[in-house]
């Protein structure tokens, strides 16, 4: 069963420095990217980094990412019930 992983980017301000969810996920479901294209001659600002569920086929619904997030920014839901 595939989950829906949602991340509130407003709450998750600097995932590149925090990265707690990336490291705790036992199956490495989450990935880090940016919500803007890269630009010449400058690094992307930290607030443009985002976390997404990129390999949701491997999500077991353990909710470790939800619990570890200091900003309470992650939600994981399975449409068939179970983890919320």
């Amino acid at each position, binding site marked *: *069963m*595939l989950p829906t992983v949602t991340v509130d980017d407003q709450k998750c301000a600097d*995932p*590149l*420095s*925090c*990265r707690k969810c*990336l*490291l705790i996920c036992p*199956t*490495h479901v*989450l*990935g*880090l*990217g*940016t919500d803007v294209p*890269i*630009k*010449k*001659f*400058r*690094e*992307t600002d930290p607030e443009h980094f985002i976390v*997404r569920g*990129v*390999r*949701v*086929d*491997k999500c077991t619904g353990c909710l470790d990412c939800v619990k570890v997030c200091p900003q309470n920014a992650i939600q994981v839901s399975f449409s068939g019930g179970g983890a919320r």
Partner: protein
Amino acid sequence: MCEWCEKYGDGYERWYFNPGNYARRLYKIRKEEAEALGAEADPQAAGGMAFVGQDFLEARERGDVATVEQIKQQVEGISWITHFGQVLTLEEALKIVDIMYPIGLMTCACRRSMQGLPDEENFTCMGVGTGMYKWERWPDTYRGGVHFLTPDEAKEVLAKLNKRGLVHTVFTFGTPYLAGLCNCDYPDCAAIRTVVDLGIRVLWKGHYVARIDPELCNGCASCVHRCQFRALSFSPSKNKAIIDQFQCFGCGLCATECDQDAITLVERANLPALANVW
């Protein structure tokens, strides 16, 4: 025979031994072809978030084999024109270091994406060719900067990374232009992960297959953790390591770890059932 060697070998034993494939001119030609097909051919975008389309995962989930196959072929088709890799042995990696220039040690985009790994811990990737001179123009692609290496320095780095258990791979950026010599592991390498978990061949197996000599294997199992492709396991009843040769990518990491010299690499081409298993 490896179709890339056939198409781009130009008389060399392997396509990645052909110095012409490290020339930017070819990259330009192929990029136009890729763009004509509607592919995102911008090498700056490579690495990315290792996204796999939700449509693919959903089709897989509901057992829709036809859709899975269709998306897989589509993704592979674009990947093989723009950006894909092949596994190398350490010996092969050491050899190509002498034919590519310049060599820049840089941070791994995949590990940044999957672990948020800080730049200072992440110098495991080698960018090669004239593209490396663009590092100042694209600080986000080359986060952490670039350390240019002599061939001898590059060989030292490769040996160290092999010791650490990383798989050497060569990657195209606009096929057949080869511009990346990566050192990868599961699950953070997007290519290894995509091919192992989902069967989408953005990474091709190498030209070798590992073979265990049961007479020499003493059952120490020190090789088992080296395999990043789920090809190597340990048989308690035999008290030996065993290799699934159909799953083996031929990286040779198990062989370099074995102090009994019980593991050798044999040519894929010499095994009829494996000669076309890439």
